[in-house]
C-alpha cells in the first residue's frame, strides 16, 4: 500500500484544512517541527482514522474529548481522509464528539503508533502494567474471557461434587445409625435400607388416618360440649334472676295494695301542682284541711314507692327475656354438640370392640330419647371415653413414628442412590474442567512465551545494531512465573547476566531498548499494510547512536507499508539534509509556526544539494544563497572526509572548524591518491565491479574549490567590497563545482556518503555504487 494524501479538517490543531501529500516514491515521511506546530495532530489523525484510539490525547491523565475537534468548531465539521493506492478511508466525528464513524469500516490500514510515553511506561512500569503496554499487539483478551468462564465452570463442578459427597455422607450415616439402632439386620445397611424403603406401608398410613379422624372428631365433640356447659351455666343464672325480681314485686304488692302504675303519674302532677302554690289550707282533692309541707312529704313517699315497684317490674321483664334467649342458645349448642357426636360415634365404633364395655356406653348414648339425654349420657361416661381417646392418641403416635421412620429411611436411601448416580457425571465434569483449564492455561502461556521469545530475538538483534560492542543485550521478555499477566524484562550488563535493565542501563539506553521492543512488536504483528508512526520518540542521542538508529530504521522500512516520523530533534533531520544518512527513502515535511487563524502549515523540504541545484538553475540568480549553500555543503563533505581519514587539524573545543581549515587539513599525500570510482548496475540491478568503472580523481576539483572557497565568506556570509567584485560566473562555478563534488561522493540511490568499510581496501556507499579510495591516509 502506498500513501497518497492525508486530508485533515477541524481536527485538533488543524483549524484550517490541510493536506499532507506523500511522496509515493519514498517509504519514510519525516515531519519536522518544533513543539506546538502540529506534528502530533497529523500523527493522531492517522491513529484516529485507522484505530479505535485517540493517539497522544490518551496520554493525558484526564481526557477531555471536546478537544478532539478544533477550538470553536462543530463535531460535524471534523473529518480525516486518507487516500492510498488501494482505497480511500474517511473518518468523521460522531454527533457527541466522542468517537469517529469510519467509512469503510473494514480493511482499514493498520497503524502502529509509538510515543515516548509508551516507551517510558513499558520500561518503567511494574511487570503487571508492562503487559498492558503490549496489549495492542499480543491481546488474547477473548481467550482469557473464555478461560475465566472455564475457571468458573470448574469451581461450579467442584462445588457440585462436594455437595453430592456431603449429601451421600449425611444420608448414609443417618441410614447406618438407624440400621444399627435396629440391631444391624441383613448384610449391610444399604441392603437393609433398600428393603425398608421397598416396604408397603399403606395399611399403616390408613390406620393412622383413621385414628387421626377419631381424635379430630372427638376434639370437635369436646369443643361443643364445653360450649354447652357454658351456655347451661348462663341459663341457670337467668332463672335465678327471674325468681329474684318476681319475689321483689310480690313483696312490694303485699305491703301496699294501692300500687298502680297509672297512679304514679297523677301523684307526680299533684306534687308539681302543690309545689307551685305558695300556701294551701285544704287538700285540692278531698278538701280536708292540710298543711303544704306535710302533704308534699306524704306525696313524695308514695312516688318513691311507686318508682321502686315500676323498676322491679322492668327488671323482671328483662330477666325473662334473657332467660328465653339463653334457652334458645343452649338448645342450638346442644344440637351442634349432637351433630358432632353423630360424626364421632360411627368413627369411634369402628375402633371399639363388641366385647368392650364402651360399646354399651355408645349404645346408651345413641339410644337417648332426645338431645338432652344424649348430652347427659356423654357427660356421665366422659371419663371412660376420654381414657379411650388417650389410648387411641398413643397408638396413633406410635404408628406416626413408624411412618416417619419409614419416610426418613426412604428419603435417605433415595438421596444415597440418586447422588451416587450423579457422582459419576459430576466426577467426570470436575475432571474434565480441571484438565481443560490446565490445557487452556498452559497453551495460552506457552503461546505468549513463544510470541515473546520470537520478539526477544528481534529486539536483541535491533539492540545489538544500536549498541554494538557495548557489552549490553541479552534482552529477554517473558511472563513472570506464577503471575497471571506480568511481563518481565531482563538484559545483560557486562558480566551481570539477566538483570533488570532499569537498574543498570542509562536513560538513553533504556529509551533505545523501548524503541527496539516496539519496533520488533510492530514488525512481528505487521499485516502487510502497517503504517508505523514514531511520534517524537528520539529526544537526544549522540551522533553515533543516531546514525545507528537511522540505519536500523532504513533496514526495517521494508517491513512496513510506510513509516511516519515526527520529530523536533533537529540533528536527526540534519543527518538527512546533509547526506550523512540515506535520503533516498525519506520525504521531508517541515512545519511552520502554528496559530489558530492559520492552523498547521506544511512546507516540503529538500536536502541541501537539491536546494543548491534549484538555486543555481532558478530564474532569479541569488548570489548570496548559492554561495552560502555551496559553502555549507562543502564544509559538510570536507567534515566527512577529514573524519574518515583522521586528518590532522588544530583542535578546537567546539570543533567549529571553518572552511579553509577543513580544506587545508587534507594532506598532499592523501590528495594525490584520493579518488572515487562509480560502478554500474548489472542486469540483476546490483552494482558490479566487473562492469565499467568510472574513476574520478578528487585533487583537481579540491584544488579549484580551494581557489573559489573565499566566495563563501565574501558573498555568502558577509558584507564587504570584495564580495561585490566577485562575478556571477565565479559564483555559479563555485556552486557547480561544489554540486559536482557532492555528486561524486553521494550515492545516487541511497543519498549517503561512502561511509562503509566492507572490503578492507576502500570505503563504499551502502548500495556499493561508489567507492572512495584510499581506505587510509598513506603514511
Amino acid at each position, binding site marked *: 500500500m502506498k500513501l497518497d494524501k492525508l486530508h485533515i479538517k477541524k481536527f485538533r490543531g488543524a483549524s484550517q484544512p490541510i493536506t499532507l501529500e506523500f511522496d509515493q516514491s519514498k517509504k519514510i515521511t519525516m515531519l519536522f517541527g518544533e513543539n506546538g506546530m502540529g506534528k502530533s495532530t497529523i500523527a493522531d489523525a492517522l491513529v484516529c482514522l485507522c484505530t479505535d484510539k485517540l493517539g497522544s490525547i490518551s496520554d493525558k491523565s484526564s481526557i477531555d474529548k471536546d478537544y478532539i475537534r478544533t477550538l470553536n468548531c462543530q463535531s460535524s465539521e471534523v473529518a480525516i481522509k486518507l487516500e492510498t493506492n488501494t482505497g480511500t478511508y474517511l473518518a468523521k466525528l460522531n454527533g457527541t464528539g466522542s468517537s469517529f464513524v469510519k467509512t469503510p469500516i473494514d480493511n482499514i490500514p493498520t497503524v502502529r503508533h509509538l510515543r515516548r510515553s509508551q516507551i517510558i511506561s513499558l520500561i518503567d512500569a511494574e511487570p503487571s502494567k508492562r503487559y498492558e503496554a503490549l496489549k495492542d499487539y499480543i*491481546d488474547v483478551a477473548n*481467550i482469557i474471557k473464555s478461560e475465566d*468462564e*472455564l475457571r468458573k465452570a470448574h469451581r461450579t463442578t467442584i462445588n457440585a461434587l462436594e455437595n453430592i459427597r456431603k449429601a451421600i455422607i449425611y444420608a448414609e450415616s443417618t441410614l447406618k445409625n438407624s440400621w444399627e439402632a435396629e440391631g444391624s439386620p441383613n448384610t449391610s445397611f444399604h441392603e437393609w435400607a433398600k428393603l425398608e424403603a421397598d416396604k408397603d406401608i399403606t395399611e399403616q398410613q390408613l390406620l393412622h388416618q383413621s385414628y387421626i379422624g377419631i381424635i379430630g372428631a372427638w376434639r370437635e365433640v369436646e369443643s361443643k360440649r364445653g360450649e354447652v356447659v357454658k351456655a347451661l351455666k348462663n341459663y341457670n343464672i337467668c332463672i335465678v334472676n327471674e325468681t329474684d325480681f318476681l319475689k321483689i314485686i310480690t313483696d312490694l304488692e303485699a305491703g301496699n295494695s294501692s300500687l298502680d302504675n297509672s297512679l304514679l303519674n297523677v301523684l307526680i302532677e299533684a306534687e308539681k301542682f302543690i309545689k307551685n302554690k305558695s300556701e294551701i289550707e285544704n287538700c285540692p282533692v278531698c278538701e280536708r284541711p292540710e298543711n303544704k309541707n306535710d302533704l308534699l312529704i306524704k306525696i313524695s313517699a308514695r312516688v318513691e314507692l311507686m318508682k321502686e315497684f315500676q323498676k322491679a317490674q322492668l327488671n323482671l321483664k328483662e330477666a325473662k327475656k334473657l332467660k328465653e334467649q339463653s334457652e334458645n342458645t343452649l338448645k342450638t349448642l346442644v344440637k351442634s354438640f349432637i351433630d358432632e357426636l353423630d360424626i364421632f360415634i360411627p368413627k369411634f365404633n369402628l375402633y371399639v370392640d363388641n366385647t368392650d364395655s364402651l360399646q354399651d356406653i355408645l349404645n346408651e348414648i345413641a339410644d337417648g330419647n332426645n338431645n338432652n339425654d344424649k348430652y347427659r349420657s356423654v357427660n356421665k361416661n366422659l371419663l371412660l371415653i376420654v381414657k379411650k381417646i388417650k389410648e387411641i392418641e398413643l397408638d396413633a403416635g406410635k404408628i406416626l413414628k413408624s411412618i416417619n421412620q419409614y419416610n426418613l429411611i426412604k428419603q435417605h436411601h433415595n438421596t444415597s442412590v440418586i447422588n451416587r448416580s450423579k457422582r459419576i457425571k459430576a466426577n467426570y465434569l470436575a475432571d474434565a474442567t480441571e484438565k*481443560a483449564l490446565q490445557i487452556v492455561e498452559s497453551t495460552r502461556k506457552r503461546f505468549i512465551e513463544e510470541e515473546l521469545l520470537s520478539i526477544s530475538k528481534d529486539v536483541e538483534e535491533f539492540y545489538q545494531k544500536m549498541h554494538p560492542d557495548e557489552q549490553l543485550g541479552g534482552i529477554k521478555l517473558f511472563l513472570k512465573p506464577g503471575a497471571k499477566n506480568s511481563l518481565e524484562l531482563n538484559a545483560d550488563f557486562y558480566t551481570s547476566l539477566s538483570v533488570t535493565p532499569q537498574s543498570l542501563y542509562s536513560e538513553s539506553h533504556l529509551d533505545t531498548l523501548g524503541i527496539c521492543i516496539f519496533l520488533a512488536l510492530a514488525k512481528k504483528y505487521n499485516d502487510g499494510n502497517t503504517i508505523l508512526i514514531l511520534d517524537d520518540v528520539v529526544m537526544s542521542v549522540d551522533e553515533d547512536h543516531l546514525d545507528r538508529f537511522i540505519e536500523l530504521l532504513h533496514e526495517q522500512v521494508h517491513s512496513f507499508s510506510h513509516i511516519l516520523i515526527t520529530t523536533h530533534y533537529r540533528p536527526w533531520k540534519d543527518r538527512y539534509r546533509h547526506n550523512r544518512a540515506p535520503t533516498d527513502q525519506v520525504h521531508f515535511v517541515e512545519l511552520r509556526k502554528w496559530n489558530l487563524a492559520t492552523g498547521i502549515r506544511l512546507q516540503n523540504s529538500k536536502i541541501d544539494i537539491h536546494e543548491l541545484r534549484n538555486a543555481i538553475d532558478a530564474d532569479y540568480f541569488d548570489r548570496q544563497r548559492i554561495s552560502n549553500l555551496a559553502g555549507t555543503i562543502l564544509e559538510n563533505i570536507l567534515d566527512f572526509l577529514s573524519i574518515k581519514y583522521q586528518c590532522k587539524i588544530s583542535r578546537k573545543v567546539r570543533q567549529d572548524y571553518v572552511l579553509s581549515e577543513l580544506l587545508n587539513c587534507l594532506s598532499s599525500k592523501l590528495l594525490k591518491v584520493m579518488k572515487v570510482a562509480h560502478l554500474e548496475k548489472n542486469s540483476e540491478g546490483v552494482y558490479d565491479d566487473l562492469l565499467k568503472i568510472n574513476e574520478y580523481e578528487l585533487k583537481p576539483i579540491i584544488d579549484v574549490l580551494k581557489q573559489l572557497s573565499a566566495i563563501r565568506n565574501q558573498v555568502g556570509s558577509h558584507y564587504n567590497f570584495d564580495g561585490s567584485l566577485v562575478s556571477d560566473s565565479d559564483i555559479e562555478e563555485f556552486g557547480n563545482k561544489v554540486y559536482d563534488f557532492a555528486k561524486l561522493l553521494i550515492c545516487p540511490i541511497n543519498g549517503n556518503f561512502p561511509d562503509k568499510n566492507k572490503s578492507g581496501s576502500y570505503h563504499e556507499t551502502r548500495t556499493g555504487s561508489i567507492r572512495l579510495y584510499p581506505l587510509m591516509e598513506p603514511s
Partner: protein
Amino acid sequence: MSEIENVNLKLGKKISSELVDNELINAEILNSFEKQLVEGKIKELDWLKVFEQKFKITFQSEDEA
C-alpha cells in the same frame, strides 16, 4: 482480520485442537467451538454443555459396547 483477531485465532486453534486431542470435546463441534472461543463468547454454561455432551457420547458408546 486485524492482527489482534489473528493472534486470538492462532491461540484459539491451538487450544481447540488440544482439547479435541485430549478427548475433552467432540471433534464435530470443533469449528463452532473454536469460533466462540476466539470471540470470547464461551460462557460457564457453554463449557459445561460441551463436557456434558462429551460425557453422554462417551458413556453411551461404553454402554453400547
